């Protein structure tokens, strides 16, 4: 009886201690430091270091007047070009892979192949695309020998070409991952539901829109939010493809590339303020992920249904 009253709680603290110490040192202290310097004028011009002088919100204001919104829009466009085909293809593939009536051969082979690009080093992949799509690269050489084009296309010379290449790379790298996530979600649906719909004479398109899609909504919204967070961090591919310039005319410059250029030029004040803006946006997105991983009602659908039912009742009474 006495033995049971031993307090094991201190072991819990001890076991989680390393995580929190490291997080405190390498994430929280840097965060505080970043926020602090965002209020200072602190940069290097040539070899001379200017500051740190306290200037209040000035960094924030000058960022609002800078090209930050343009880079934000670039990031959003690049993300959309990759995400829209990614989610469409992933939904279709997930439906096919889980459809018992379709006899797909070599399922495992296809899964292995479509997931492969996800593990490839993004920077090496971007360099590969840079060489392959350059004016004297293999893609132009193939298109010319097929007789489809007469003169080489300068893919990276146009806004459309560069953005499409970046979006295409993001699509290739992520559609396999999304497919596998969505497949797991579809397989989590009870077979009874599908069988019942079969008996009711549902065709595969109806089944997809009226059963599969509504039932995997939680995972879909999770995929959406994590993909937005990933898109916000977009850096490796455009950085390497355009050599950090965001060419042509900074139309493929993303927010993190902007941050990187401030860090490289040691403009700590501006880098700090930009980080704080990014931190606020990520914080909001983190909150959504937190809600989804901890709630029983991940996307608020139950809550919405309850609210609707309440209104309905009120209307009936009134």
């Amino acid at each position, binding site marked *: 009886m006495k033995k049971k009253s031993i307090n094991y709680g201190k072991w819990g603290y001890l076991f989680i201690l390393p995580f929190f110490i490291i997080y405190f040192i390498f994430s929280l202290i840097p965060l505080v430091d970043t926020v602090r310097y965002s209020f200072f004028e602190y940069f290097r011009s040539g070899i001379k270091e200017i500051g740190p002088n306290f200037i209040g919100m000035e960094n924030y204001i000058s960022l609002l007047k800078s090209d930050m919104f343009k880079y934000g829009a670039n990031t959003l466009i690049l993300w959309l070009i990759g995400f829209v085909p990614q989610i469409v293809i992933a939904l279709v593939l997930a439906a096919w892979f889980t459809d018992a009536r379709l006899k797909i051969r070599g399922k495992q082979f296809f899964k292995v192949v479509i997931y492969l690009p996800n593990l490839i080093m993004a920077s090496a*992949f971007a360099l590969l695309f840079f060489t392959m799509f350059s004016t004297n690269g293999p893609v132009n050489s193939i298109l010319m020998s097929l007789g489809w084009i007469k003169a080489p296309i300068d893919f990276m010379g146009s806004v459309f070409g560069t953005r499409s290449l970046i979006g295409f790379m993001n699509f290739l790298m992520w559609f396999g991952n999304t497919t596998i996530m969505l497949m797991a979600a579809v397989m989590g649906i009870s077979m009874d539901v599908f069988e019942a719909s079969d008996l009711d004479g549902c065709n595969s398109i109806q089944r997809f829109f009226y059963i599969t899609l509504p039932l995997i909504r939680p995972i879909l919204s999770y995929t959406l939010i994590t993909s937005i967070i990933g898109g916000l961090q977009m850096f490796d591919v455009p950085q390497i493809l355009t050599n950090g310039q965001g060419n042509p005319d900074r139309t493929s410059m993303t927010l993190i590339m902007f941050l990187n250029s401030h860090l490289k030029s040691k403009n700590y004040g501006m880098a700090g303020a930009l980080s704080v803006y990014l931190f606020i946006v990520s914080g909001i997105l983190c909150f959504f992920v937190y809600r989804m991983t901890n709630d029983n009602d991940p996307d608020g659908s139950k809550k919405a249904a309850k609210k609707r039912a309440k209104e309905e009742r009120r209307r009936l009474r009134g």
Partner: protein
Amino acid sequence: MKKTGSSFRTVFAHIVLILLSFMCLFFFYVLIINATRSHADLQKGFSALPGKNFLENLKNVANDGSFPMFRGILNSIVVSGCSAVLCTYFSSLTAYGLYAYEFKARKAAFTFIMAILVMPTQVTAMGFLRLVTKMGLYDSLLPLIIPSIASPAVFYFMYSYLQSSLPLSLVEAARIDGSGEFHTFNRIVIPIMKPAIAVQAIFTFVGSWNNYFVPALIIQSKNKMTVPILIATLRGADYMNFDMGKIYMMITVAIVPIIIVYLLLSKYIIAGVTLGGVKE
């Protein structure tokens, strides 16, 4: 009637799948073919068949002093390997600490980790760079390894795994047998968590191997560069005057090790993708 409809769909599905697979594999095929051809061959245009310059190109890459690729691979293996070990061990430890023990701060600690689950590391990069410089760790591999001890996402994966596969009665039984708490963790819990650890070790290794943003800020000297930084330097250099065969070979040595590991372990990796997903 229904039968022909479904067989048409099957054929259509296969065509789309083959097209997508072609898209995924085409670039790697061209990469590997081009890595076997000489600069002069490559200038003549694309050929679908491999050349004879594979070893020659490999030798050129190995002997290039300005882009020490093999040194870079070694650095990358050290960083990724150490990160994978530290990250999985300490994430399991943290997960076990929060799963198996009752203590006052338990709920708060769990909530905190869940709140920062997907926080991008880039937002603290500036403070991190300054901190590392102040600690005298600028241009060293340590700041690329040590922070991996605190990985919220890996923690969450481990925690979910413990919930599904470690009954607390087992821990009680070990206590009655006189096993110390650390001993229980290392000898009983770790073996049970082996599948989860293996999956997360692979993902952490690959993630660290491919990481470019933070290492590019921290590492300065050539002999400490990891592979992604070398790739970036290559892109920044006066590129068009290079031996193209050598360039393709450099990209090949940067990504082929991961492809080989992936093909060997693909079954576990694909099964592992979904394990840490959203709770149903």
